[in-house]
Structure formats: structure tokens, C-alpha cells
């Protein structure tokens, strides 16, 4: 197969180096445009296995608000994002919920848990007298 060029913008530091990857047969042959070592590591990860933390909401019952904000506790493969959101749209959680509580364990076999990012009491709103 012929050589192809892929462009990847580094996000590790504010310099945002624009890197050019020469790829042949699905393998990186060379990386140009980075100004430090971290860029190379990032480019490799982004090309071979881009990972993202998923942040979204799930339905919540028993609280003032109808939604609970959640996240994956570690990054998951980028291609799984939409599928996970679809899976989570069917989940409903009941208050109270602890911060960090596992809502879905090992979601779609990604190795990551979906956890609550908010502490929700059964009464709801924090209020002191």
C-alpha cells in the first residue's frame, strides 16, 4: 500500500505542535513536527488507539434534577463513545448517589467503570438553616 500522511495536533502542552505522520500499511513510518518527546508518545497513542474519557449524564429519580452527571473512570477507546452513550441512555439511577459510586461496571467490556461525578442526597438540595 502507498504511504499516507496523517495530521495530528498535539494537546500535551500549549505549543500545540502540528505533527505529520507518514503511515504505510497501517504502521507509522515517521513522525515530524514535534518539539519534544511527549509529542511522539501522544502521536503514537492517538494514531494506534485514541482514547477518551467519556462524560455524560444518566437519568436520575428521586432528586430535584432529572439527570446525574457521570464519567468513565479511565479513558476508553474513542470508537466506543457513541455506543456507550446509547447504552447509558437506558440506565436510570435512584437517589441517593455517592460521589464516585459505580453506576455501570466495565461498560461494554472497555475495562472502565462509569462512575457518578456528583454527590446526590435523597433530600436533594444542600441547605443549612
Amino acid at each position, binding site marked *: 500500500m502507498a504511504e499516507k500522511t496523517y495530521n495530528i495536533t498535539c494537546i500535551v502542552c*500549549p*505549543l500545540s505542535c502540528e505533527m505529520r505522520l507518514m503511515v504505510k500499511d497501517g504502521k507509522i513510518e515517521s513522525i515530524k513536527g514535534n518539539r519534544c518527546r511527549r509529542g511522539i508518545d501522544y502521536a503514537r497513542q492517538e494514531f494506534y488507539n485514541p482514547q477518551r474519557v467519556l462524560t455524560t449524564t444518566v437519568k436520575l429519580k428521586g432528586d430535584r434534577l432529572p439527570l446525574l452527571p457521570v464519567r468513565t473512570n479511565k479513558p476508553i477507546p474513542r470508537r466506543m463513545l457513541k455506543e456507550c452513550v446509547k447504552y447509558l441512555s437506558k440506565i436510570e439511577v435512584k437517589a441517593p448517589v455517592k460521589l464516585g459510586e459505580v453506576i455501570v461496571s466495565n461498560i461494554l467490556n472497555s475495562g472502565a467503570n462509569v462512575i457518578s*461525578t456528583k*454527590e446526590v442526597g435523597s433530600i436533594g*438540595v*444542600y441547605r443549612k438553616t
Partner: protein
Amino acid sequence: MREIKADVAIIGAGPAGLAAALSAEREGAGEVLVLDRGEELGGILPQCIHNGFGLHRFKEDLTGPEYAQRFIDEVKTKRKIDVKLKTIVLEINQNKEVLATNSEEGIFKIRANSLVLAMGCREKTREMLHIPGSRPAGIFTAGLAQQWVNLEGYLPGREVVILGSGDVGLIMARRLTLEGAEVKAVVEIMPYPGGLTRNVVQCLQDFDIPLLLEHTVTFIHGKDRLEAVSVAKVNSKKEPIPGTEKIIPCDTLLLSVGLIPENELSSLAGIEIDPSTGGPVVDERMQTSVEGIFACGNVVQINDLVDYVSQQGEVAGKNAALYALGKLEQPKRVINLKKGRNIRSLVPQIISAQGKVSFFIRVKNPEQKVKLVLGKSIFQQKNPIVKPNQMITWEVPFEDLRLNDDVKELEVSIRKL
């Protein structure tokens, strides 16, 4: 009318206000009262369900609610900090008196020894941009759309165009896409994106959402509900280039075109406002032009990292407590800071040149390989790249600088290396 006394009264229970409350309590304030118009603590953070918060402060990658929870949990343990939610401040004055109202208590007055303003900011609207066309339903500021999607659970529309590539707009591009809407384009008038590169990659590139740089929305179409927007390329003067217009059918337009510090209360109280920030003129203790009134967070200057907001909150809270306890020393000298080359805004604007000062700076134009310069190179620091959308913090050790006593003014500027 009911009157409440407080040592420190704080307006706003977002990241700035909560940090100020904890810091004031730590410093020994007797009664700290925090007021917020929202229904929960955290200010804007509860709707910012994405991650990227706390990288500097906690060395962790947190979501908005998680970042807020750190402060909320701590506030809950402090008996001296009282919170009133769903409360709107109607008026403040130079005597540190606050007139406020809520449904439970009605109208009441707070007599505080010091005030901390932490009201945050609001979003620029379509009208401020003078976008011609009709007035259909379907036009939202990005933050309002975020509230609908993340807090209320409603999708504003299904075919979206986003004007402005600031972080809020980029984040919403991803959020709407994940919730099933189609984001047709993000339109940006400048030749570079307004938000962090990380967000351009993870919110637009990840989802193949086109980013139209050097473009703007020139017309809004639709009678009852938005039907389309006209988009055109702009020249170097930001004017639409005739002949480049194209129509993008859509039912929703999100505006992420700028944030404005919310200083209506500050202006009414006669606090001096810096036109370049839109917020109060403050010294390094975050005190405004009115003694005993302090300010922190987005109400002073629009920040891009919540970590800086909390940092400012801590300074404001600490000094507000000291003032309330009668322990805040008058500054021995006052130096006005001038904005030099490529500086758009600078906080604090006044310093007393004792100890370390953390500056929060925004530049006008992007530049690479520059240095930040204080005075005529009294103090410098190299910087590989400066961008308008990335606030610079710069710590200057004034105590080590041995400035002459007669220095009344210093310039901060960006210079080429």
C-alpha cells in the same frame, strides 16, 4: 426589615465564592455568609459535566461537578459558613450593606464587615453582535443550551450550527453530537480557534465537525423557528466578503461569542470598573476601589481555568476576613500597572509591591518566542507561545526586585526574545 450581621458576605457560591468562603473561615472570620441565586452550590460547575478541571490545583483531571464537590464537601463541615440558595441580591452599597430576597425569608438586609463579589459572568447575545435577520425560536447562547442538555435533560434542537469556537461552544458541539443532534459546523471569525486545542481535537475532529475559520454568520432565516443561517468568509477587517455566502439549513444556532463579567451590582455601588476587563479594578489582595469590598473569579476578568478562579477566591476571602477583623494593613505604597505591548488585560491593576504578586494576563495577539517584561526589564520571563484564548499567570517576586520608592507606575508588556 430583617437584618443579618456577618463578618464576610460573599455574593456567588461558584468556584470563586466557595474558595473565598473557605479561605475567610480559615483566616478566622466569625460568620461567613454566602448567597447564590441558583438552586445548588457550585455556580456554573454543575452544568460543566466534562473533564479538564483541576489539572493545576489538584493535579487531577476532574469534571466540573467533581471539582465543585471538593469545595462543597469542605464547606458543609464548617459551622461558621452559612449558605443561602435561591437568593438574589438586589443592591449593595459602599457600606458593605446587602439587600437580598428569597421566597423563604422575603427581603432582608445584611450588614457585613466586608464583601466578596463572586458573581461570575454572563454570555454575549446575538443582539450584541448585530446579526441581521429574523427572530425565530432556536437561538441559544451555548451556556444556556448546556443547562438544558446537562441539567434539565432537553435537547434544544437537532440540526445545529455553532457560532464561536470558544471552549463552551466546542464542548457543546461534542455534547450535542453525543446526545443525537447533528452539528453541521462551528463558525469562527478569527483565523484561529477560540478554545483550547484539546477541545478542537476532542470535540470537533473526533466527530468530523467542520470548523470554518475566518467565517461568520451573516443572516438568520426562519419565521417561527430557525430554518437556516447564512455564513460568509470574512476579510482581515472581519467584514463579510461578498459572494462567499452560503446557506446552512439548521434548526438551532448556538452562540459562543464571548463572556461578560456580571458587574451590574458593582457598578451600582460605585466600584471602579476597568473597561479592558469589564470587571473591578483590584489590587493584589483582590480589594476593589471600595475599602472592604473584594472581588474574585470571572466577575473580575474572564478566566479559562477554574483553578485560577479558586486561587483568586482564596486571596479575596483571606483578605476580606482580615479586613473584617480589622487586621488588614494599609498598603505602604501604591503602584499602578500599565498595559504595554500586546497586553489586552491585566489583573491586578494596582499593587503595593510587597511580597509575591500573581498576575493574570491576557494578550491581544498570538505570538511565539516572547518574554513577559515588567518595567524596562526589571523582571522578565520567557514564554514559548502566548495566545489570546490562554490566560497567562505570572508570579512576580516584588520583594526581591528592590524597586525605588518613587516608582508609581510600572508597565507590563510582551516583547520578542
